[in-house]
């Protein structure tokens, strides 16, 4: 199985623009399946972007975020070729991590 995280990070001068798409069901716990029973809550609780040993973006998420979330932000202080580490953990303890080169 391929990584659940897709990242694109581009440095433009001092500013690095990051786009990420994460594959996750993000079940809120309030939705019923076709049989009428509740689908248990299953959502990402923490999403973290690290660059050069520093956290550049940390999100504390809850059940309100949509399925397969898309994140876009920019930060200063990185250059082309630096590594950006992305990781998430969900309420069931599952997690995934990946590293992308800033281009």
């Amino acid at each position, binding site marked *: 199985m*391929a990584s659940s995280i*897709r990242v694109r990070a581009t440095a433009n001068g001092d500013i690095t623009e990051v*786009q990420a*798409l994460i*594959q996750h069901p993000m079940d809120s716990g309030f939705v019923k399946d076709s049989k009428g029973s509740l689908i248990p809550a299953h959502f990402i609780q923490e999403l973290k972007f690290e660059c050069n040993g520093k956290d550049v973006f940390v999100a504390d998420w809850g059940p309100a975020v949509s399925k*397969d979330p898309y994140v876009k932000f920019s930060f200063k202080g990185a250059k082309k070729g630096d590594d950006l580490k992305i990781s998430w953990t969900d309420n069931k303890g599952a997690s995934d991590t990946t590293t992308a080169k800033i281009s």
Partner: protein
Amino acid sequence: MKQRATILLGSAFLALTALAFAATRVVAADKVDPAADAKAFQNYFFQKFPNVKHEDFVNGPYSMNADMKRQWQEKEEFPPYEFALDAGKEMFSTPFKNGKTYADCFPNGGIGIRQNYPYFDENEGKVVTLELALNRCREANGEAPYSYVKDEMASLTAYMAFTSRGKPMDIKIPDDPRALAAFENGKRYFYTRRGQMNFSCASCHVQSPGERIRAETLAPALGILNAMPIYRSEWGGMGTTSRRFITCNSQTRAVPLEPQSDEYRDVEYFLSYVANGLPISGPGARP
């Protein structure tokens, strides 16, 4: 005597010509002419939207609204169908239990052939869609068929469409009365009003493309299937052509048909044929 004969002959000739004219008129009204239909269909949209580039119609509502188009182009850098596309690629190259693959069932190994579907199968006497061909391929190789509506089927068709991107839709109607009847039946289904709202497919997608229906912008019928399968934000996932038809039926409060029923196959044949020449843009993303 001679004169009378001439008059008689003359009136007989007149009667004959009148008959001949009447006959040609009747034939003209009854003759199925897909090529003329497609031309008229395309010209209607080209004239209604003179500023839309012809190949842009396949982008549905985005061809109708500059603002939506900008947002979509930004989204295309990171398209929501990407996961399905990767899954489809993997599934397509994974052999069945008997060692055969999807590539064995299709011309050119299934790559770059989406623009030829649906086609009219002269042995069966019916229209065969890509989704149907995929499930038949699975069953022929001892695998269970997939749902026609979403998930695996949408992933597979997404990958096959992706390998055909940019190729012009190329649907053939063989010189077979059954093929012409299928085309005509699809056309009839498309223009027939049904359901509690008394809408036909054409009420929205021919009469009002670009208009708002609640928060949605209606897509033009021209090239609407070129983008299939689609990721719809409303669905929170992928959907096939079958899913699109079912959704349309239920939204106009009509009773949807079974996926891959004859009418759906015929309407897919009709809609794909009239979009001949426009590029495949699938998999697509829609609000």
